[in-house]
């Protein structure tokens, strides 16, 4: 989209989900879902618990058979990729290694199956900072270490596409910051990064695009700024002043809307910050704060998925 030179056929990192559906016995986990994920960007895949995120990612990776529709990565179904690990790296569960196997051996087993050289295991381990624990058994790993081992496994084939299901689970603040930098770096190199998550504040820092689903259906897709901007509550400005009455009168004269918030804060709509500043100056009102309210992803998310969340 942003990169005009790349046509869809040459973008080997583009993910296309079209009409994807999964019907379990009692639940329509994913319902005619379509969206695309561009390379060179981090795409956040958001939805309430049980929305169908994990099921969608597993169908994309040929682990779960769709009841309808399909998904491609770089124009090919996952099962048709000649060397899947060299194209796609995926991190799905934190605890997916044999408990009695060492971290390095876990990676070597994968290297052997994928026909990758053995030293890729050491390199990948170094990449995620796990080298000191290489020869420790998986059952002795902390949650964060398990998560890092999963990422190392995904990076073995140096893939163009990364797919992660809740990778921030169990990471401490330092770990989350590391992950953010890591994933942004990968996207910056031109790779595709698709991350599902619940941590909306984290997503606001991390994602360039978002795909929001609820109850198996697409709610909204697009660049973060655009999704945020589309919401009604955007554009308000927080104002604090010791002369509230005078300012309110002056602002209303300019046909702005004013609400009173906590601690005497005024929430002004219909005028931007410079305009409010001008009005205040003209009215000789002293200002203590003048902050444009930035709509946050969490509020937008809750508003968009209102009534559609809940365990099914």
């Amino acid at each position: 989209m942003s990169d005009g030179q790349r046509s869809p056929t040459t973008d080997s990192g583009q993910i296309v989900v079209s009409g994807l559906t999964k019907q379990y016995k009692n639940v329509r986990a994913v319902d005619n879902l379509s969206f695309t994920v561009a390379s060179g960007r981090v795409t956040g895949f958001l939805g309430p618990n049980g929305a169908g995120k994990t099921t969608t990612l597993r169908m994309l990776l040929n682990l779960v058979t769709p009841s309808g529709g399909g998904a491609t990565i770089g124009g090919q179904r996952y099962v048709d990729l000649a060397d899947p690990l060299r194209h796609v790296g995926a991190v799905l569960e934190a605890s997916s290694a044999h408990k009695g196997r060492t971290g390095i051996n876990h990676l070597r087993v994968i290297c052997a199956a994928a026909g990758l050289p053995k030293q890729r295991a050491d390199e990948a381990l170094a990449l995620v900072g796990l080298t000191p624990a290489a020869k420790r058994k998986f059952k002795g790993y902390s949650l964060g270490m398990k998560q890092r081992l999963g990422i190392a496994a995904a990076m073995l084939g140096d893939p163009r596409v990364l797919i992660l299901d809740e990778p921030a689970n169990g990471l401490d603040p330092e770990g989350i910051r590391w992950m953010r930098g890591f994933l942004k770096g990968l996207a910056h190199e031109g790779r595709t990064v698709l991350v599902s998550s619940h941590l909306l504040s984290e997503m606001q820092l991390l994602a360039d695009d978002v795909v929001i689903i609820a109850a198996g259906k697409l709610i909204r897709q697009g660049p973060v700024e655009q999704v945020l901007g589309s919401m009604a509550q955007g554009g308000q400005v927080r104002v604090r002043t010791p002369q509230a009455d005078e300012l309110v009168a002056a602002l209303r004269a300019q046909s702005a809307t004013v609400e009173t918030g906590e601690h005497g804060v005024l929430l002004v709509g219909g005028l931007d910050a410079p305009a409010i500043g001008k009005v205040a100056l003209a009215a000789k009102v002293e200002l203590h704060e003048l902050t444009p309210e930035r709509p946050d992803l969490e509020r937008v998310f809750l508003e968009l998925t209102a009534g559609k969340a809940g365990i099914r």
Partner: protein
Amino acid sequence: MNLVRSELLKIRTTSTWWIFGLISLPLWILALLFNWLQTDALAGGTLEDVPAEQADQIQAVQSADSLAANIYTNGQFFGLLIVMLLGIIVVTSEFFHQTVTTTFLTAPHRTAVMMAKLVAGAVIAMLFWLVTTALNLVFGALILNSVDVGAQFGSGAVWRAVGLNALAYLLWSVLGVGIGVLIRSQIGATVTGILLYLGGSIGAIAVLALLASKYGEWINKLQVAVPSLASSLMVSGAEIPGNPPRWVGAAVLIGYAVLAGVIGALTLRRRDIS
């Protein structure tokens, strides 16, 4: 090929194989002691007061070929069980430790994964057979010489028994992998496997004997359709009068192994990994 290497590496990098090896050793020693006593008794002809109709059966068992074949396939009873359990674990540990996701991400063609597991199971089975047979040839020859039967290394029947023993190890490992696919639970599959191997034969004999008393003697011939009985028929040292020929046992067991492999592969292809 890569997949087979990976499967073997999986087995090598956990403690399972040497634990099973360690369990096998005392069982093998026990079997050897038992067979020593039996060989001694049979070779000495100390079993005298047998009913006339069993006399020629006993005679067949007492032949030098039969004694040698028996001792060179020593440890088979538990060996086959161990190999089958290893086959089961090759599959069920993937579900138990949730590594199956990674396995199928690396190799999305599931039939190939199934094949690799069968081959890996077979390789392990052959290793167990090789080690056991090497030990048997050394200690068996000593025992046979001690009872004045002689090592019988020149006998074709002996080597046929050793070869069929290898086939039995192979087929039970395949059966194990098949059971593992059909029953994902580690405990469930293990218990089912052991029942099939041990209890299955006893139960089947009882049921068949009951049916035979009702519908006639021919039903007893169906014994060969029970996997464990087919297996023991196949590896019995020499043709024993009154029993079906050994190749029938082999054919039945091969049939079960192929069935287990095919059903396992088909099941694995369809299954949702979530």
